[in-house]
């Protein structure tokens, strides 16, 4: 039964943005919550992220974007995951993402996007809940 399995999460920093405070905090919090966490390090292209996601067979890709390039990066990762036959992977994340863009990205099938001031508990709960519903089908 899949509840026995731990959630595997790839925490990723796409694009050229070097702000990794949030990514590192969330990676540590996910680990403390019992997830298996892989952190990509900085300056990753969508191709690099998807290849790591596939290789590591993760359930979730959590991306942190503070550069304003979210409208390019989130859809691109989602698209490449689809091409790699991994469209059951949850793409979620956070950063400086204006509300209208959040709505647009969610409509494209991106998971929840968290803004500044979010408690790590909230994003952990979200991933756990998603996993409880979707992990069975994997």
């Amino acid at each position, binding site marked *: 039964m899949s509840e026995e399995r731990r959630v595997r999460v790839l925490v990723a920093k796409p694009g050229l943005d*070097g702000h990794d405070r949030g990514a590192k*905090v969330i990676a540590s919090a996910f680990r403390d919550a019992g997830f298996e966490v892989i952190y*990509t390090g*900085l300056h990753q292209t969508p191709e690099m992220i998807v290849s790591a996601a596939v290789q590591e067979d993760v359930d979730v890709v959590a991306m942190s974007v503070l550069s*304003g390039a979210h409208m390019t990066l989130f859809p691109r990762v989602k698209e490449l995951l689809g091409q790699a036959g991994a469209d059951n992977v949850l793409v979620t994340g956070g950063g400086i993402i204006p509300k209208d863009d959040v709505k647009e990205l969610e409509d494209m099938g991106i998971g929840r996007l968290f803004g500044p*001031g979010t408690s790590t508990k909230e994003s952990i709960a979200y991933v756990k809940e998603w996993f409880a519903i979707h992990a069975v089908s994997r």
Partner: protein
Amino acid sequence: MTIREKDVPNISEVVKALSERDQEISDLKAKLLKWESTYERANKRKAVFNSGSGTEISPLYTDLDRAEADPGLLGLPGNYPYTRGPYATMYRSKLWTMRQFAGFATAEDTNARYKYLLDHGQTGLSVAFDFPTLMGFDSDHSRSLGEVGVCGVAVSSTLDMEELFEGIPLDKVSVSMTINGPAIILFCFYIAAAEKQGVDTRVLRGTIQNDILKEYQAQHAWIFPPNPALRCIVDMFDWCSENTPKYNPISISGYHIREAGATAVEELAFTLANGFEYVEKGLESGLDIDSFAPQLSFFFDVHNDFFEEIAKLRAARRIWARRMRKVYGAKNPASWRLRTHCQTAGVSLTAQQAENNIVRVAYQAMAASLGGTQSLHTNSMDETLALPTEKAARIALRTQQILAYESGIPNTIDPLAGSFYVETLTDNIEREAEIIFDEIETLGGVVPGIESGWFQQKIAHSAMRQQNEIESGERTVVGVNQFTEGSESIEIDTLKIDKEVEKRQIAKIVALKKSRDESKVSECLSALHQACRTDENLVPKILECARSYCTLFEIRDVMQEVFGSYKEPVFF
């Protein structure tokens, strides 16, 4: 009013005065004991009385806390050890420079914002580049996709730099540029643009951030590995001391270290340790300390803990002065003097009830002025949501003007000197920084500390600790974990960058490459390639490339072939 020129206080006089105060002090001790017992019995608020750095703060500071302190630690403003300010007359002569960091979309768009800011009373410019530029990519590079002009202005060649300052006289306005990995290249674009305006480089005033060590530690916009990167910086020290004597070739920055999570004390200690490293590299390459040290400048964050931030700036000046004089043997007082820019803490701003950020910024700005900063950027209230709108940027600038012209704070120099609390904090921060310097030394220095990830880990741990404090409620963030209003309550306008910007930028590069003299371009680039293999100063070679309209990525690429690229140690 006359300012006394006397530098070193007469120690024997001070000792005499102290002994006369013996009686006074023992009286005070007795009274204090009584006060303490009252305090112990009293009801106290349920709160954690710590500084932002986590140091326990006493409920009361008195004469006794500094009874043993050396009065020479204070001195007078403009005098060693500069605790009270780097200049003798400080804001009585010249207010801090109000320098708002700005840049977005294309050079033309940003040029218009600069003119707007200058028209509204801003007194210096500060360029924010987009991520591709910060990382040394041209706007048409595949890695730049989606990021062109988004977080700052795109500058891929001298042509963009010329447009950025079109109609802005570079001999009159001082310009600060936040660029690090490819700093030497953007600096040459700037010099070439100034030459095009007919400006003598010797009158140029401004600062280029050019602090690669904190990039490895915190901000992460690097290109080359530490050794060649440090060589470029030392080449700039050397070239600038001759050719741009009024220009600061480096701004040794704590800001990004702090924003990434460090405490105030860590910010101070890491930044100064980086400063010592640059000095040592300059000395190793054979430069005379007094030839480049007067042009070193600093950049600190000003965060929420009001008094700790003030004390941090005062301690920074004192530590730097002492090191420069006693350890590195600088003789010119200008080499001892730490001059700094400050910026309010972006990381302290909240997306929740974003208008409250105006108040946070105002308090932080006040701390910067009380700490004696030379220039200041005040953040806009909407920066946790997007790039600032014109209105938000104007309020941020007005905040400084209210501080400068209405509050009365700049009327007297270092107004908090002698405060039992502020002086004790200043002494304590200095002591704690010295402990960190020792730790760094046992690591083998700054570069080994970076390579092993020591700095990065310290910063990440502090960030995690602060997050935990917020989530446990130990640290209050108004509107976030206390005094919340449920769902998002305030709608504020945000600035959006048009997708057309990327297309316009790419078209511009294509056109540039068609119009320039290609044989000149390849000639300059191969001369640079050669020079990278030798000890020759790289500035003149890159400047030739800039004058010939080689692009940022073309220059970076040639250098990278020789220097290689930096690989970060990945961990969390």
